[in-house]
């Protein structure tokens, strides 16, 4: 017996809906290839684990204003990341749960409640061929994911139908905190910024600008003064806070250019990247100086805390409830 193929049709693509995965394409910087992948990979992994997938399968990355999707053959989906107002047949769908959608169900999103990027995984996994080790969409260069582009009206995605897995929930709230993000200042020997500019960066309440995207988060607040406007181009890791001549910083995100020629005032450690990923335009952000040793201590503590609990639990007693929860 060949496995049945499920299908989801795009009725409305929303603002920006792409195929991504938690892995992306790290380690290819020498070719000019950015790491890409899900901006919030932990949420992408969680969405998959909610439907019993491994974690690295392709997911839909949904940005702010979500799509309308018709699941012609039904599906068991996992929802994680931002709460963008998911709804089906009048039922509110919230991140951190899996849901069974009957054939012909329409999944919509009626507007962002919190966060910027939601992830939808499907049991069985979307059928997307990996390119350069990943199923992620690179829109700038037009490859990966679904034809190297964002989803459009009329697109159809297929997946292997296996909807027998149990409904699951994520245990407890996510890692979100309200405190300032950490900033590892760049070495003074690089001579790019006076000490007072780093202090000023950390004393400022920044607002995420509307033109922020997967390439970079643009911050407005004050105008920073670098000692130089251009530097020899060098590799810029994700999280690098670059300061162009305008003085308004840009935090490099997963699709951002891998080499840059703007002075970098500091680097937001990976520990805080999920908060950057979920910072919708208009969000205010603050930063505080952190040492590498502190960042590593926190990262180790968080890793052992999440190892204690698997994070995903089976829901009991609701299998009889039928399709949706």
């Amino acid at each position, binding site marked *: 017996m060949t496995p049945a193929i499920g299908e989801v049709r795009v009725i409305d693509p929303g603002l920006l809906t792409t195929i991504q995965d938690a892995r992306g394409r*790290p*380690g*290819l*910087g*020498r*070719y*000019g*290839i*950015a790491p890409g992948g899900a901006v919030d990979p932990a949420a992408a992994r969680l969405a998959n684990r909610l439907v019993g997938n491994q974690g690295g399968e392709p997911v839909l990355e949904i940005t702010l204003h979500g799509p309308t999707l018709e699941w012609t053959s039904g599906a068991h989906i996992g929802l994680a990341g931002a709460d963008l107002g998911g709804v089906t047949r009048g039922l509110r769908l919230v991140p951190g749960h899996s849901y069974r959608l009957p054939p012909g169900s329409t999944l919509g999103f009626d507007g962002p409640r919190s966060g910027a990027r939601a992830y939808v995984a499907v049991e069985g996994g979307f059928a997307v061929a990996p*390119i*350069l080790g990943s199923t992620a969409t*690179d829109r*700038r*260069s*037009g*490859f*990966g994911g679904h034809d190297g582009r964002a989803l459009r009206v009329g697109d159809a995605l297929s997946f292997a139908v296996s909807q027998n897995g149990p409904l699951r929930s994520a245990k407890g709230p996510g890692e979100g905190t309200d405190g300032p993000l950490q900033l*590892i*200042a*760049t*070495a*003074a*020997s*690089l001579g790019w910024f006076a*000490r007072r500019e*780093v202090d000023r960066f950390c004393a400022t309440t920044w607002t995420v600008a509307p033109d922020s995207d997967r390439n970079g988060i643009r911050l407005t607040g004050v105008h920073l003064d670098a000692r130089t406007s251009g530097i*020899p*181009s*060098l*590799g*810029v*890791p994700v*999280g*690098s806070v670059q300061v162009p001549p305008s003085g308004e910083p840009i935090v490099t995100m997963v699709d951002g*250019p*891998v*080499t*840059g*020629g703007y002075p*970098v005032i*500091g*680097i937001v*450690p*990976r520990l805080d990247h999920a908060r950057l990923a979920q910072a919708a335009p208009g969000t205010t952000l603050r930063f505080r100086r952190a*040492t*590498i040793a502190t*960042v*590593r201590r926190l*990262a180790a503590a968080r890793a052992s805390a999440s190892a204690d609990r698997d994070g995903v639990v089976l829901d009991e007693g609701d299998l009889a409830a039928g399709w949706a929860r």
Partner: protein
Amino acid sequence: MGAVRVAVAARRVDRRRYAPGVDRVHGIDVLRFGERALVVRIDDQARVHALAAGLLADLAAGRLEDVVPGDRTLMVGYDGTDEGERAARQSLAAAERRLSMGVTSPEPRRRVIPVHYGGTDGPDLAETAALAGCSQLALIEGHAGRDFTVQFLGFAPGFAYCGDLPPDLVVPRLATPRTATRPGSVAIAEHYTGIYPADLPGGWRVIGWTPVVLFDPTADPPTYLRPGDTVRFEAVEVGDLPAAPHRPSDWSA
């Protein structure tokens, strides 16, 4: 005199607070760049390429997470742990030691890029020549038939920063960047020349076009030009160019 001493003292404090990670590994400057990367500064770009080449085995083995040449810099990514940082520093030291022992790196690959200059293929040629204070022909002759080196890639997959342009061809970028550029556009900016691998926005001055494909995600490796390659542009008549983009036969060499 007193003021100078104060300034020096202030800088010392500054350094202690900001740069605990600056040190020298086997004769090269290594800086910590966030919690998952080291940056090496090297004045000699050929040595950047040689050092990068010497680290690729450790990248393939997973000891390093990325090796990214820049302009007189090399960024090395690792897993963000103390052990990972130690391993990355050891990799750098070992690669540097091999270089200083005279282990020679392979001859650079030679790449020839046929270009049709000017016309609709090079919409900025006339203005660029005017800015450089030379004729269009002189600009073409200054660009073609000369060896450039791929200094590093960036901006987009397959986009190679080739340098250095002769000083008299160095002109500022476009005042208003294009929102789209035809793939294959051969362009110059500051002391670099490069080729747009895809339809991208950008402020480089487009002087010609080539049908050579620069980036193919299904090819191994995925880019035609790689750091350290020697590149020569060859002026051709439009009739001598294949009209369709194509992948050169020496791609995998």
